[in-house]
């Protein structure tokens, strides 16, 4: 208990330190937060290393139930991931504060947000969990609403986020409280013991409530609508934490649900898998067609969480027929969660640096940053290649493990599971392809090519701290990718908390070997081979002929015979995604508007052509807008009930009194 109470105490201290004078505020809070993150990391590493949960209880903090701490290896994995991501975000913040996020409220909210993110996985009972969960939700809401005074979008984002997160929290509270009512005390361990005796229908209802609540936090479609808004509007260090740490806790919640309720019948996981598939495809499709860098990243988060839920679903489905494949799926899923946290925080911090340098996040206005911001662009390229699941980075290892669990789970599957598995593989594949399109676009349009605007042209590399932040997460992507051994040991221990059956997966320094299940891959060997080959070919290229030796001449690129080329002749993010948009026209239903005005003299001369295309979220347009419109209509109708007349209000009270009397008697 003591290290975690120290952590919590320091966290609160950091939040109070936000009251310090403006000139030193962020440095002070960041310094305390680094200590908080270090404690979180050390504690969780110790839990993972010893494979013993950290337990503790105090009655002094919260009334009635007290605070119960139970940091299992599973929770420790999430805390460790959060600590790492938060460290990078905090370092980045030191530079970013000159751009935004230096007010008292934002600083203090950031401190509380980091602290609660670190502590949620350590919660050992319902009340502790819900209190921390609320602190996390509210502090992040403050951060999302950071720009509310200057930007209407930020206000909108805060509304959507607030509504979705509170709706989700309500469902989670409902589910947990019902569970807790049947247990002898509200600790998760006794709930898990008693939940097995609940009737099937009740468990199913609780599962659905908890799944929907946590899925809203993880940003699963159709509860994803807050995500592209909130992630895009929050300041960069906060977005990195939203996407690299907070959505993970939605996944943690779903895993927790499994530990509380048991694996349950197959249909639970078919439902989960359905939403996973929808999220993966929908998120990757919108990521591939977005032009706003941060929205693109946010949709990609939705897509990755979809893949994670697919993995969880596979683990649940294989549980009875193939326990080893089930455990493997869970390990793969947790690997994917940590991998996502690392590369997505790299990308969000990088996007923040771009915003810092150019005040722009529209890809159509960027370009050429690889020359002006070399360090940032290298980090972003690594993050993008990792999210595109290219070897030898961690995204590849994660995706490979997920596919392997599906391939092996198919070995002894009944028809329904077979069909689900096949659909999962197909969805995974299409998602992978679309993700590559999305991130080649993000990097190729945003960072390579020629600058498309003044701001991009004159961008300067960001301060050191803003290069270090994404730098450490990007390096982690490489290290975990090529040498997965250490990470995998920790993840296997975390997974064993939920699925004790051994998966047979072992990791050498260089790669994964599936043991009894046949299959292996060595990212390190692949990387070394490819790097050696690259160096060899580079040496060959350099050694050609004396006259040509390594002299590289610059030419104007080919412009179909025209000599004048301008940056506006390049492909933009919109045009890059146009073929995909046409292929998936029926799904995306984009709105085009073409307006041709002809010259007065003749219709054969065109004076002006205006083309507008809007690619807003189709779920939001088709599902939420009508519901909101209906609610508004009801609201307007209901206004007649309260017309301000005192007599009418008294009459309402009178009627209620009479009815109550009649009913009670």
């Amino acid at each position, binding site marked *: 208990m003591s290290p975690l109470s120290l952590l919590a105490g320091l966290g609160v201290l950091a939040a109070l330190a936000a009251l310090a004078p403006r000139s030193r505020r962020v440095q002070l809070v960041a310094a305390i937060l680094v200590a908080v993150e270090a404690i979180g990391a050390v504690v969780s590493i110790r839990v993972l290393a010893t494979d013993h949960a950290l337990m503790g209880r105090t009655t002094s903090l919260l009334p009635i139930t007290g605070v119960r701490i139970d940091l299992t290896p599973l929770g420790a994995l999430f805390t460790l991931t959060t600590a790492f991501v938060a460290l990078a975000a905090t370092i980045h913040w030191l530079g970013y504060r000159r751009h935004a996020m230096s007010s008292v409220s934002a600083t203090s909210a950031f401190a509380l947000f980091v602290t609660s993110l670190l502590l949620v996985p350590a919660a050992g009972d319902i009340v502790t969990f819900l209190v921390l969960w609320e602190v996390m939700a509210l502090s992040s809401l403050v951060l999302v609403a950071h720009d509310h005074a200057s930007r209407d979008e930020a206000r909108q984002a805060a509304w959507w986020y607030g509504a979705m997160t509170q709706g989700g929290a309500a469902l989670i509270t409902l589910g947990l409280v019902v569970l807790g009512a049947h247990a002898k005390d509200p600790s998760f361990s006794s709930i898990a013991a008693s939940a097995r005796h609940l009737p099937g229908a009740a468990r199913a209802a609780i599962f659905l409530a908890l799944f929907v609540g946590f899925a809203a936090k993880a940003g699963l479609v159709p509860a994803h609508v807050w995500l592209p808004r909130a992630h895009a509007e929050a300041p960069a260090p906060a977005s990195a934490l939203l996407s690299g740490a907070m959505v993970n806790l939605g996944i943690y919640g779903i895993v927790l649900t499994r530990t509380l309720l048991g694996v349950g019948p197959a249909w639970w996981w078919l439902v989960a898998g359905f939403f996973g598939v929808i999220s993966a495809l929908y998120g990757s499709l919108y990521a591939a067609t977005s032009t706003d860098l941060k929205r693109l990243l946010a949709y990609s988060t939705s897509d990755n969480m979809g893949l994670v839920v697919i993995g969880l679903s596979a683990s649940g489905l294989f549980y009875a027929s193939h326990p080893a494949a089930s455990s493997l799926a869970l390990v793969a899923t947790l690997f994917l969660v940590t991998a996502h946290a690392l590369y997505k925080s790299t990308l969000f911090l990088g996007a923040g640096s771009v915003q810092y340098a150019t005040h722009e996040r529209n890809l159509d206005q960027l370009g050429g940053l690889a*020359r002006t911001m070399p360090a940032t662009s290298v980090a972003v390229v690594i993050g993008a290649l990792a999210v595109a699941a290219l070897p030898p980075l961690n995204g590849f290892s994660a995706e490979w493990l997920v596919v392997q669990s599906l391939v092996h789970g198919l070995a002894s599957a009944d028809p329904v599971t077979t069909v689900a598995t096949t659909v999962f593989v197909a969805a995974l594949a*299409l998602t992978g392809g679309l993700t*590559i399109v999305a991130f080649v676009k993000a990097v190729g349009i945003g960072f390579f*090519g020629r600058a498309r605007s003044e701001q991009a042209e004159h961008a300067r590399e960001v301060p050191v701290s803003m290069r270090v932040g994404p730098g450490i997460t990007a390096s982690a992507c490489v290290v975990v990718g090529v040498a997965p051994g250490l990470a995998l040991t920790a993840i296997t221990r975390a997974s064993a908390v939920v699925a004790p059956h051994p998966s047979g997966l072992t990791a050498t320094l260089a790669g994964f070997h599936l043991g009894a299940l046949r299959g292996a891959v060595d990212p390190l060997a692949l990387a070394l081979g490819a790097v050696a080959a690259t160096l060899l*070919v580079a040496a060959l290229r350099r050694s050609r002929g004396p006259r040509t030796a390594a002299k590289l001449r610059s030419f104007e690129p*080919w412009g179909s015979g025209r000599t004048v080329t301008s940056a506006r002749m390049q492909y933009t993010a919109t045009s890059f995604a146009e073929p995909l948009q046409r292929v998936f026209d029926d799904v995306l239903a984009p709105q085009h508007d073409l307006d041709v005005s002809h010259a007065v003299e003749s219709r054969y001369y065109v004076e002006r052509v205006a083309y507008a295309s809007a690619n807003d979220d189709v779920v939001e347009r088709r599902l939420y807008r009508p519901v909101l419109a209906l609610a508004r209509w009801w609201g307007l109708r209901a206004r007649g009930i309260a017309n301000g007349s005192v007599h009418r209000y008294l009459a309402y009270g009178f009627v209620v009194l009479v009815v109550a009397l009649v009913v009670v008697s």
Partner: protein
Amino acid sequence: MSLATVVVGLVQLALVVVGGPLLLGLMRRVRSRLEGRDGPAIAQPWRDIAKLAHKQRTRPTESSWIFAAAPLVLVATAATVAALGPLISLTPPLAASTDFIAVIFVLLVGSVALALAALDTGTAFGGMGASRALTIGALVEPALLVAVLALSLPLHSTNLVAIVADGLRHASVLVGPSHLLALASFIVVILAESGRLPVDNPSTHLELTMIYEALILEYSGPDLALVTLGESMRLAIWLGLFVNLVAPAGIAANATAAGLVLGVVAVTLKVAVVGVVVAFFEVTTAKLRLFRLPELLAGGFILALLGVVTGAVMR
């Protein structure tokens, strides 16, 4: 990794490096003959590469490091797969981890590098080529992975060496409907991945109709030589893996000298035959419009899916 396996890897690498451009030359020659022309010599691609290698390197004015790195990455990834894949022998280096999915993704690294380099040129053509190539790549992916799933069914493993070895041992696997459907879908995948007709016309040079040529438009000199070499190696690898999945006969089961020679001869002949067939097919086919391509790729996907279902029902 014993010495023998290293030798196998090096022989395979040499075969693919030397043979890739020759395969390209052979296919061009066959096309020319079928179209009633005499056509260039089979060794012409090699002469082109040798000529280009002695020219000066150029780059567009505002390009960055990725433009110079992409040809290297393209060749290096192809070389890695050439050395590790089961082409002439069932004992390539690291046979236990020659995973089908890893092979696909390593090759994908080369495609992505080239697409990024194309965007780096800062021209409309580069962007167009990158956009189209990746769109096709994304739509191919489901067919590819589901085909791999179908091929993995008998062994429940995606280890490429194991799958090929299984085909060598049990001929009944090769004629099983699941295997055949997966390979049928694989043909669609290969045509799309290597930019052959009806997906892309490899001999066009009109900017607006092409995909792959637009992608590499700005390369010249040694860089263009590398890109040509890399692309031909990739074609040779795809076809080499394909023929060994269709008919593994002749592949060396161990790393004896005689076995390796036989393996080299066998895979060369098989790939040459398939190359001629592809060339023949290309002469008789028209290029599909870009937006009809999803039909072709969805067809490939559905064949692979039927492969999985058939494999699952026959278990």
